[in-house]
């Protein structure tokens, strides 16, 4: 009854027997299929390439999702699916719905030297797996390269005498030869150092640190750290910027817009700080303040004032676009504070603001320093 598997998977090394499908695998596939929207089921299963064309043809996607998932599990049973295949499907789902996860950006640092880096995917995966397995045997590691040249790594962590938990895996997204790693953290925080170690070994770096840049939109994070934001750089070849809202100019000539110059100034400043293109999508920016109140009066009343601690969090479905529209809408003065506009340039949306050393004696307001 069992068909020959249509797909070779050379990097798999499943601890599970091939002939009888593991119960957890079956359940995992069932649940993964349940997560896929009905309209997407067929395309995603086609992308999976695990089921044969005839199997896909026979699949009825117009029935209840419960039934679809059961049918898919039966087909997988025929093809002797292993956890690697199940993880593969999960990766396709996660890649498609990558904006459902919260991504953290990490930066790796390399010591001097190693200029010629011939990145080889096979070598990378081998090193990663070796490193991780050397310290933690009980893991499921799956790799997949997607069409945007990103390498996805899925790690499901196990525990002592317990199988890896497929439902809470860590996802790592890496682009070869870049120092940046995008990680969707698993619940299992203690496993992070192992993950970092494996990444450093595989990508040949010596240290890794968090960049304080977080968002749900993975592609925007990539745009920010890979400097792909369409910032307007001044050149001689730029097309003259087209005037927006030019239809307003042709109204009654007796109407004079008194704030025309001010409006133009705001628009210009806005364009200089944010550029013309669409902004990368971030959901929030957080500022942790630890500063003292300043001013003569306060100093007289409270000579030894404790620093004032608070956290300011800006959130919006599209934070940077929201910030960009603040000044033109007349809600804030232009230019905005550099603390708000430096997000893409500094590639971080978490800031700690502390007192500048010795600033309290100078008594000058607005002097703060951004620390890590």
């Amino acid at each position, binding site marked *: 009854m069992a068909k020959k598997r249509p797909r070779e998977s050379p990097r798999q090394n499943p601890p599970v027997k091939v002939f009888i499908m593991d119960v957890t695998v079956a359940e995992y596939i069932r649940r993964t299929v349940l997560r896929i929207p009905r309209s997407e089921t067929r395309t995603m299963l086609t992308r999976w390439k695990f089921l044969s064309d005839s199997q896909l043809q026979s699949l009825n996607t117009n029935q209840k999702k419960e039934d679809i998932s059961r049918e898919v599990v039966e087909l997988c049973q025929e093809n002797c699916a292993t956890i690697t295949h199940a993880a593969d499907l999960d990766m396709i789902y996660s890649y498609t719905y990558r904006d459902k996860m919260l991504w953290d950006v990490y930066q790796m640092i390399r010591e001097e030297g190693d200029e010629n880096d011939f*990145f*080889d*995917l096979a070598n990378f995966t081998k090193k990663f797996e070796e490193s991780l397995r050397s310290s933690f045997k009980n893991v499921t590691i799956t790799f997949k390269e997607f069409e945007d*040249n990103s390498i996805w790594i899925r790690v499901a962590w196990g525990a002592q005498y317990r199988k890896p938990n497929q439902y809470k895996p860590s996802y790592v997204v890496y682009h*070869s*030869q870049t120092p*940046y790693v995008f990680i969707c953290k698993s619940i299992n925080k203690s496993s992070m150092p192992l993950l970092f170690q494996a990444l450093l070994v595989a990508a040949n770096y010596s240290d890794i640190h968090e960049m304080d840049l977080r968002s749900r939109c993975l592609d925007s994070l990539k745009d920010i750290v890979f400097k792909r934001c369409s*910032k307007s*750089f001044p050149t001689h*070849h730029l097309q003259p910027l087209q005037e927006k809202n030019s239809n307003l100019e042709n109204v009654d000539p007796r109407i004079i817009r008194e704030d025309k110059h001010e409006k133009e100034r705001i628009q210009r400043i806005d364009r200089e700080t944010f550029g013309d293109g669409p902004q990368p999508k971030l959901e929030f920016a957080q500022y942790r303040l630890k500063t003292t109140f300043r001013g003569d009066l306060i100093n007289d009343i409270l000579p030894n004032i404790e620093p004032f601690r608070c956290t300011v969090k800006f959130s919006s479905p599209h934070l940077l676009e929201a910030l960009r529209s603040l000044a033109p809408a007349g809600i804030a003065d232009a230019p905005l504070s550099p603390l708000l506009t430096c997000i893409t340039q500094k590639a971080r949306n978490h800031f700690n603001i502390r007192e500048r050393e010795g600033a309290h004696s100078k008594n000058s307001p607005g002097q703060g320093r951004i620390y890590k």
Partner: protein
Amino acid sequence: MGENRASLQKGVLSHLEQLEAAAHEVALKRGELKAQEEDTARMKRRIKELRRQRDALRTKLDLCRSQLIGGKNTTNVDSGTTEAGQQALLEWKTETLKGLLQVFHLTGLSGKLTQRGACFCFSTAFENTYLDSYYLDLLIKQPVQILRHSVPPFIPLEQIAHKYLQTDIKRFLTVLSGHLNALAGRKFQVDQLQENYAAFLDGGLQGNSLCNLLEFSYRLARDSEAFPFVARLTYANLVSTLPTEATISCKEDAPAFLAELTAAHEALFREKPLHRVFSAITASTDSPSQSLSRESPLISSTSLSSEGHDGRHPPEAAAK
């Protein structure tokens, strides 16, 4: 009368002398008077002339004012010819300058002064195709700093900056431009290969972001079952669009005559861009009529730029 008498006493000749002297004096005075008259006349003429000029300027000014008020629909009447000439000269100058800028654009490197420094634009190209542009905003003061840039993260910008930025900005720019051009060129080759020769490749190309390592399996004919050749190209020189090392291996089950081709292929890969190699090796095995009908646009493009594999890379040349 007494005088006359005295002169008579002294003699007629001396009297005549006196008369002569008086006549001379009178003539001098007359001459002076005449000169004065002439002077005043000239002055008057000059005044008239100046008045005329003043009036002309006044009318011109009025005309200009009325033009400014009245709008741009009236044209200059009296001194239009000289102004039109000036205008034409200015236009010509701007055109020349624009042309010069265009020429700089063609070199792949152009810059614009900004408030704090300069913003450079690297326009990359390979053969006859313009590719991506990258930007670099520099703060020009000691020490020179990179304010912002759009250079991809896998270009070793920091290392290049560390080497040259403080000592030799020109060198820094040419080296960076070389890296960017080579990257764009390698990417372009890969894209061309995947676009035009997908039928000869087994799946995709295995590569990396810098495109300095490429691995793929290929075949020479569309109808053959297997992909007997495995290529591994390494580009150790990051400012070059050609591989420094090309290793072609033949799968064990492949026929012997194919195995003999590997050395020739290796040489080709080292000398020519990827898509040129494929146009050469696949065309040589296909019958000419087939390849013509199938890939006529490709063949025309080969013949167009067959004189050199790298049509334009001035920064590289300058760097060397």
